[in-house]
């Protein structure tokens, strides 16, 4: 029997099924497209004038941050989607089939990477209309997008672990907000860390989001990347090393 090709096929089937859901469920579609674009426009036009970043137009500062924020918020959907399947009995159906045990989680997280890439591209296009410029090489920009996708993938596993632990979609949503908000706002997504009060600043400086945002920003603004990228990658690796096994374990112990 060809185990590897079965696993591959199972993951593909699950991914396709999840993508169909994103397309058909209006809330999901709004959450994953319109809401991020709205954030982008609001922050640019409402706060843009007030926030001083020292990088020329605020959109060039903001877009890298808000792309990262979008995939961070998007990661919450991974856990919510899993628990939704769990509470509707779909996971039971999957577990009674001879499919690869890993395919449900892998299909879920891969779907979210695909959705993230789609949203990132959509937001970049909107950004280009309102003043964002890719001035420092398309490869730098693509590298930035790849890092964002990888970062989103890592956080999807965090979200999956939490989702499978709390077991109801509503709790997963709340639990998601509890870890996502401090991470997002205690970072350099919206404002430079140097502008924060010292207590928050200590947190923000070591926040993985800050490293990722700083790397993405350096790549798109043509600034030196420095050590940010290594810290970012180390965080991503560390998160995956911890949370992939945790999520898989949780999934296996569903009964």
């Amino acid at each position, binding site marked *: 029997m060809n185990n590897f090709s079965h696993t591959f096929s199972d993951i593909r*089937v699950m991914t396709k099924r999840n993508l169909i*859901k994103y397309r058909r469920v209006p809330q999901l579609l709004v959450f994953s497209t319109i809401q991020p674009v709205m954030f982008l426009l609001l922050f640019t036009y409402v706060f843009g004038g007030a926030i001083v970043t020292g990088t020329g137009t605020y959109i060039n500062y903001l877009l890298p941050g808000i792309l990262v924020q979008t995939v961070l918020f998007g990661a919450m959907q991974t856990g919510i989607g899993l628990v939704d399947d769990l509470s509707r009995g779909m996971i039971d159906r999957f577990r009674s089939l001879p499919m690869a045990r890993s395919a449900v989680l892998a299909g879920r997280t891969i779907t979210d990477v695909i959705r993230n890439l789609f949203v990132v591209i959509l937001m970049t296009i909107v950004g280009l209309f309102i003043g964002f410029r890719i001035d420092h090489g398309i490869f730098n920009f693509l590298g930035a997008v790849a890092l964002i996708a990888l970062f989103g993938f890592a956080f999807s596993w965090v979200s999956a672990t939490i989702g499978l632990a709390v077991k109801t979609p509503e709790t997963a949503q709340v639990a998601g907000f509890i870890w996502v908000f401090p991470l997002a706002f205690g970072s350099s997504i919206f404002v430079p860390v140097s502008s924060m009060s010292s207590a928050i600043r200590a947190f923000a400086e070591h926040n993985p989001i800050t490293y990722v945002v700083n790397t993405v920003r350096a790549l798109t603004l043509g600034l030196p990347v420095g050590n940010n990228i290594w810290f970012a990658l180390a965080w991503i690796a560390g998160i995956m090393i911890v949370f992939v096994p945790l999520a898989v374990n949780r999934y296996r112990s569903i009964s």
Partner: protein
Amino acid sequence: MANHPLISYVEEARGRGMSNKQIIDALTSAGWQTHDLTNIFLEHIEVSREPAIPESADSIVTVRNVSKIYNKTIKALDNVSLEVKRGSVTALLGPNGAGKTTLVRILTTLLTLEHGTARVAGFDIVRDAQELRSVIGLAGQYAAVDETLTGRENLEMVGRLYHLSVPTSRQRADELLHQFNLDEASDRVLKTYSGGMRRRLDLAASLVIRPQILFLDEPTTGLDPRGRFALWHVIRELVKDGTTVLLTTQYLEEADQLAHKIFVIDHGHIIAQGTADELKKQVGGDVLELHIADHGLIDETVRLITPFGSEAPRVDEDTNIITMPVSGGASILIDAVRELDSANIKINDIVLRRPSLDDVFMALTGHSAE
């Protein structure tokens, strides 16, 4: 309904010794729609059960001393052992919380087996779980189908996850949609399905691979009488084609209609097993159910009807309903009415019915099923 033109035909045909299947075939070819027939047969015909399965049939399910304890405290199954013969329909009959779902979930690898052993279709359910999954079908107590996919997409997905090829999955989905009368709804998302349609699709999903053994957890709960009858028909057809079925139900009537063998389960114990007839014999035949108007006359009524019963009457003080197993057939009903009439006891309602799960429970355990 009683004057339906078909009834006299059906009765006459049965008098000539035609089987139900022959009658249905004859009527269908004469242009009658399935739902006309369903109504008639539901109300007026006792559908004959399948012939007994051959003695030599081997076991497809062997459960030995299986116990399940939830959260270290709730004993859902207590040392359960049973066998299911290949090609048969076996029913697990029990009230809410008896442990039916727990057993089904263990046998379909959804719950880990901690105490005891079980083999299904030649596989050890723990060691060979993955192989086992590719030969069984499961329709759980609650429909497990994807709301945002269409009926066809649901079935194709399941086919692909059983590792059927794309064309085979597609073809199988078509066949099943047709078989379960979902052709018209096949490309609609499930949000637009009724509960009954969802159940049917769920059952279809469990049949994608033509499983060796099909597990159905309360398959007809939530279906209207017509849907229930149609499902019984589907199950019988599957069994004719050689599928083994293990189903759970709360209705003796349903187990009676479908199953060759019934296991009665209560509080995690198998408290009785046998054919429906064997179980009913324990009750002693039919049940006379009597609803009197005046609460104060209950004792008097009980005294008067006791001689007609095969066992002592049981009284529900809240509803003024008296039930009593009887073995003498319809004449007892008439005798009882006469007796009460001459004593001037007003009867709201009196029926002679077949024993229910509750009656069997009463006979077996001395307590009600609830």
